[in-house]
């Protein structure tokens, strides 16, 4: 797993992908931070994070679109799949490499908490809970994006399908009923309040696990259909 993780992580920062993702996210966070803190004089890191997460829908595909689609297109999946590494370790390696990119993003974003802390007294615990929620949400996005990337060799499709999917989820979750539960963004709401709700945590983790598993199944199946 670590072999793949290391290489994938390197690729994120050898190509513009890692910088584009982190740059875009920090740009949005900075803008929100500016409007909350300077225009409205809030001292609240959680709200900044809360308002920034919408952009994840559009930028996580930057990380996930190439994961398997590119390998398949270039034929490098032949190198991966004929190595003694198992499919599970390959999938997890790629997934956790993306997770590390998210962690780096979070670490940079947390600088803003430091700024607030210097001038005021925001709650560290609440901020950390919000960060946890953010991380879990990002993992869900990534697992879905990775799954889509595993079923196509077209990176554009691998990017657009997750965006449309998450936009639709967001749209339907505005109506009441069963769809309300589906929205990954809605599930985030309690975290900025400092609440770690079991339902939401389990929800995010199950969503991620489901799509990691589906990715593994897709790759396993491909051996026999290909």
């Amino acid at each position, binding site marked *: 797993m670590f*072999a*793949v993780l*290391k*290489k994938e992580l*390197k*690729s994120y920062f*050898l*190509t513009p992908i890692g910088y584009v993702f982190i740059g875009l996210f920090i740009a949005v966070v900075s803008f929100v931070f500016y409007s909350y803190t300077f225009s409205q004089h809030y001292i609240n890191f959680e709200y900044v994070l809360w308002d920034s997460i919408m952009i994840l829908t559009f930028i996580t595909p930057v990380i996930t679109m190439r994961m398997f689609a590119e390998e398949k297109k*270039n*034929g*490098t*999946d*032949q*190198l*991966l*799949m*004929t*190595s*003694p*590494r*198992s499919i599970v370790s390959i999938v997890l390696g790629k997934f956790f490499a993306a997770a590390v990119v998210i962690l780096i993003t979070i670490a940079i974003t947390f600088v803003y908490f430091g700024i607030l802390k210097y001038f005021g007294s925001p709650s560290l615990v609440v901020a950390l809970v919000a960060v946890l929620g953010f991380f879990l949400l990002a993992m869900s996005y990534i697992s879905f994006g990775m799954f889509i990337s595993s079923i196509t060799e077209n990176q554009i499709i691998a990017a657009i399908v997750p965006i449309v999917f998450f936009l639709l989820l967001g749209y339907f979750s505005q109506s009441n009923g069963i769809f309300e539960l589906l929205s990954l963004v809605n599930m985030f709401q309690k975290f900025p309040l400092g609440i770690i709700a079991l339902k939401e945590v389990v929800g995010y983790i199950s969503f991620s696990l489901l799509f990691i598993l589906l990715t593994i199944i897709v790759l396993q199946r491909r*051996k*026999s259909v*290909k």
Partner: protein
Amino acid sequence: MIEVKNVSKKYGDFEAIKDISFKIDEGEIVGFLGPNGAGKSTTMNMITGFIEPTSGKIIVNGFDIDRKAKKAKKEIGYMPENVPLYNDLTVKEFISYMADLKLIKRKEKKAEVERVLNAVGVKDVQNKLIKNISRGYKQRVSLAGALVGNPKILILDEPTVGLDPKQVTEIRELIRSLKEKHTVILSSHILSEVSQMCNKVIIINKGEIIKIGNPEEIENQTNETNIISVVVEDEENKFENVIKTVNSIKTVKFIENKENSKSYEIECNVNDDIRKQLFKECAKEDITIIEMKKKESSLEDAFLKLTEKDEEGGKK
């Protein structure tokens, strides 16, 4: 070393590989021959565990590629068709990643990467990005990737395609130098390449094996006639009469008239060598033989004959 037992591969209704079986022993260099689309790559992809056969079994050095995948895959170095590589990595980074994927121990990794870089002669471009190196170098890097970890078996899919003649010779030399330490399977549609390098040939067409043997055997088996080409100086046009006196000639083909000489191709039975007789007869009639040569049969002819035969069989 490698055992392929009754392997078939179906894509929907299309049968890409039809019940093939063969065995490859340690130290052999085996050439997979076949026209494009014959199933060479499919077979190789199945041996390496990239795809699964629809039915049948593949045993690699005693390990079932399906059930003992990890152990079996460790024995194989694979150079896939079209040399897929990670373009964003440098040559050295790529080899080092291959070493990681192939479970090389951390302590041995550095030395192993060096060894492989030197073995294929890409040391001078080791710090270049793969996207910036030439096709010939890419081919070498891909071969290096297969060599990492010193696997017992090397599977090379069309290793010389897309290279210029000089590079082709270099890569061939390289592959030939591997034969002491590895069992090599390579595929090609260039027959001279296979007859030069391999000591066993598997000819495959439309998913079926039509012949297994060493190149000379196959050449001789399919050879039904001897062809002798002659160039004579024959001002009085007596050669055609001379030929009639020689037995066992099947056909005589006039090829061309060049200045004072004429060239012919004479076909006769495979067991008869008429050159001596022809020489004597011509001498009697005062015909000067400028050139006389038995045409060497080639794997090319054998291959064409075999695949054509197969085609006819298919039509019936």
